[in-house]
């Protein structure tokens, strides 16, 4: 792959003098397929990036977002895998709901990200907070809350899988109530006092939960953690004051979790579902000059002050990584070992009645 992109660069350089007036994308229209309904997090992310791709891809193509919801994003991703144009004018935006079924090997999945070209990836963080009623102030209190912890989730096979694995990794006794429409309604249930432990992704945490923290109605405990390029879990860059789940484990058990199966399962899912949540892909066979143009645009974006200013809320302070540099890390995150997979399926079957 690396050689291929070098080759692309060489080709682009050779082609440069001849076609200097006519960049690859001049006059073209790029379509970003978002396999989710309009208005969701992935849609917002894709629409945000679309305008900056328009500005920074040489030739200034039109960049449109096309929502193809259905099957919890599997339908749109399958469509992309089977029908996408390979001239660089069709891209796919994926999220955790696209990657988790792939990792778990669900039979409906007919796509394989390993065969695609990664354009960009950016992460999302998660902050876990509790109600003051629980008496929990810091991670070590989680083992002895003054009332039973109750969590409101959406569905065990979606992003909540990571939360379930977190509870498992930390050995918490939590009553999990699935069935909320989204994290927003689940947060309302927390505010109403129906649940007492909750997590939100960083932008929602900053806008909706921080005011509650200031009023003494919520206590932040830990961040889901961020898996760096060495595969080590560190503190969330947008919540540097909060201990990561890794530190929380150490506080609770006075030892490091490395090597434990339940920890391995949690950390690999954090990487796949949070650290590399919002990815943009081109299909295999996309010409190198197209990939080059798109990836150059990612670099240019990162320098654009307006991108950084407006990106504060959308990107939550996480870096956007250029696809060719991040691809191996992203793909590594999607490949979980068989024992981890078995651990996850066993957990889902025994505790949450999920048949995979």
């Amino acid at each position: 792959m690396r050689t291929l992109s070098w080759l692309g660069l060489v080709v682009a350089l050779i082609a440069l003098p001849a076609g200097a007036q006519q960049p690859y994308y001049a006059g073209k229209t790029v379509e970003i397929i978002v396999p989710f309904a309009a208005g969701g997090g992935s849609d917002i992310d894709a629409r945000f990036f679309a305008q900056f791709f328009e500005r920074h891809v040489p030739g200034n193509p039109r960049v449109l977002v096309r929502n193809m919801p259905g099957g919890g994003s599997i339908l749109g991703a399958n469509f992309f895998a089977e029908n996408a144009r390979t001239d660089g004018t069709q891209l796919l935006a994926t999220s955790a709901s696209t990657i988790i079924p792939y990792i778990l090997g669900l039979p409906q999945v007919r796509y394989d990200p390993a065969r695609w070209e990664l354009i960009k990836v950016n992460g999302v963080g998660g902050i876990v907070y509790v109600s003051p009623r629980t008496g929990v102030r810091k991670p070590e209190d989680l083992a002895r809350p003054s009332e039973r912890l109750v969590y409101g989730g959406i569905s065990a096979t979606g992003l909540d899988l990571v939360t379930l694995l977190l509870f498992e990794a930390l050995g918490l006794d939590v009553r999990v109530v699935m069935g909320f429409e989204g994290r927003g309604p689940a947060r309302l249930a927390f505010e109403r006092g129906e649940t007492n432990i909750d997590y939100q992704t960083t932008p929602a945490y900053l806008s909706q939960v921080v005011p509650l923290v200031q009023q003494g109605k919520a206590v932040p405990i830990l961040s889901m953690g961020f898996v760096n390029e060495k595969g080590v879990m560190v503190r969330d860059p947008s919540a540097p004051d909060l201990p990561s789940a890794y530190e929380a484990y150490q506080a609770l058990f006075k030892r490091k979790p490395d090597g434990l199966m339940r920890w391995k399962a949690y950390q690999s899912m954090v990487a796949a579902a949070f650290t590399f949540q919002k990815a943009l892909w081109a299909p295999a066979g996309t010409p190198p000059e197209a990939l080059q143009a798109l990836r150059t645009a990612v670099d240019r974006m990162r320098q654009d002050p307006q991108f950084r200013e407006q990106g504060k809320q959308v990107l939550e302070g996480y870096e956007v990584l250029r696809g060719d540099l991040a691809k191996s890390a992203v793909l590594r995150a999607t490949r979980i070992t068989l024992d981890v997979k078995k651990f996850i399926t066993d957990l889902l079957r025994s505790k949450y009645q999920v048949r995979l």
Partner: protein
Amino acid sequence: MAEALSAAVELFSSPTRLGMLLLGSGVGLLVGILPGMGGIVAVAVLLPFMLKLDPFSALAMATGALAVVHTSDTITSVLIGAPGSAAAVPTMMEGHPMARRGEAARALAAAYLSSLVGGLIGAIGLTLSIPLARPVVLSFGSPELFLLTVLGVSFAGNLLGKEPLKGLAAGLVGLLLGTVGPAPAAAEVRFAFGQVYLTDGIDLALVALGIFGLAEVTSLMARGGAVAQRTDLGTGWWEGVRDVWRHRWLVLRGALIGMWAGVLPAIGATAGTLMAYGHTVAASRDRERFGKGDVRGIIAPEAANNAVEAGDLVPTLLFGVPGGAPSAMLMGALLAYGILPGPRIVTDHLDLIYTVVWSFALANLVGAAVMFAASPALARLTYVPFYRIAPPIVLAMVLAAYQETQHFGDLVSLVALGVVGYLLKVTGWPRGPLLIGFVLSNPLERYYFLTVNLYPQPQDWLLRPGVVVLTLLVVAPFAWRAVRWWRVRGQPRQEERTRVGARAVTTVAILAVFLYAWWTARGFLPDAALMPVSVAAAGVVFTAAQLARELAGRASLAVDEDEPDSSPQELGKRVRQAVPYLASLAAYVAVTWFVGLVWASALWALWFLRRVARLSWTASVVYTLALVLGLLALAGVLGLHLPRGRLGL
């Protein structure tokens, strides 16, 4: 209040903001006219422009569009009987029969005026409720939300029609249809038949387009002639204005129901509008007139559906929990400006909120004025022979259906639901309860499980004051009806004895569906099975009872809703006439699979214009060409997608 005034001054004195507001309203009105397209398409069209404007102008633009999409979706609902959106179904149920009587102008005028007043009440309500909304919204826990959905379902009880058994069974069909897809409380996908397309459930817009829109268009094609059967009633718009004044309290009640349905999570816009309709029927003494073109059935829902949009802004702005996709997109645009919806928006961006409120009010005024001015001209469309205007309507519906997921399944679902809708229509199965059941099925099941799982001890939720009050609201009308029934018992009831006819086929088919669902659902996980099993079991009981009545010849005549006086022979003749049209629509979709939408549309339109409308070859070709160009232009301007065929066309 100072902020409210200064925001108003800013808005009205800034040509950019005012201009963007008007532009947004224009797009909203245009998109609203197209059946099946609404706020999502309007906001999606405007979004690229919004991102280049300052936040105030951008918000004025988006609010302008969202405020009026439900004003203009009245046109197709009334004139053609194809609801512009699911929330326009009550307007269609009452407005379309009025149009057939030649009272289209009256229906439209009443609809626009109530829309306007509803929108203004919504704007005022929004202004007043901003300081109070947070504690009020939080006081509704999961048990209260569950009972609100129960209340919504019980409102369907007012729409049962002449044969209550059929109405109940139809409501259960809706509930069952709503269980297709992922179960809220268990990791199981139900009734997907191995199709990934069905794993997210059936789309509401497709249900409205198919069960109501396509069914109505088919019936109009089969009947031939113009929509209006009388032309002697004049323009009548002044009559519509007087209707609204006469029922001014109904406008207020409709707007309040709509606004609260928008403010509270769980209920949703469509159910709010239908609840306003159900309330109107329940509160009227002469309820037999509903469903046959009663203007009261237009006034309350129209007031409600504009107020819903205002109410929806409360959870979006104050909690960051948008009630619908359009407001979610609005929220995404705000994020890009660094404006975070949430508790702090009231302190940090109050001027922005009031810009939204005033834009909302102004757009309602503009939208209603434009549509009002256009309504006498539009009403004349009902005098044109229907086959001349059918092709663009069918094409627009197919195009809209495909925008839902852009999967071929959208088109198949549209035609399948259209066939089902037509069957229900001609055999006199009320479709109002079906729609209520469908939209509330998921929230009902979701909040039931959330309630019992979050409150493991029944007394913890059953005795909450809100729950007790809502339970009384649910039970009281039924108790009242039981008392009335007890009083009139023993009086002989007139029942026509009828022969078992073809209509029993529909009853048998519905019974088979319930039996199949009951049989299949028993194999689901317990938490996924409860809802479909109980719905299907109740459905089996009611449908079997209905079938028994029909076989014993005790059921009243199966009648087409539109033609209550027609004899069974005429009905049979019309159904036979409808078969070729339904077949042609199925062929249209099948051909699309091979050659893509553009060519398939051209072929279907050409066939229709030559064989049905009997236009000359020249006229047919010119009309078809114009249609195809219009289709392409529309897709280009609105950024819509046209399905391509396997042959690569």
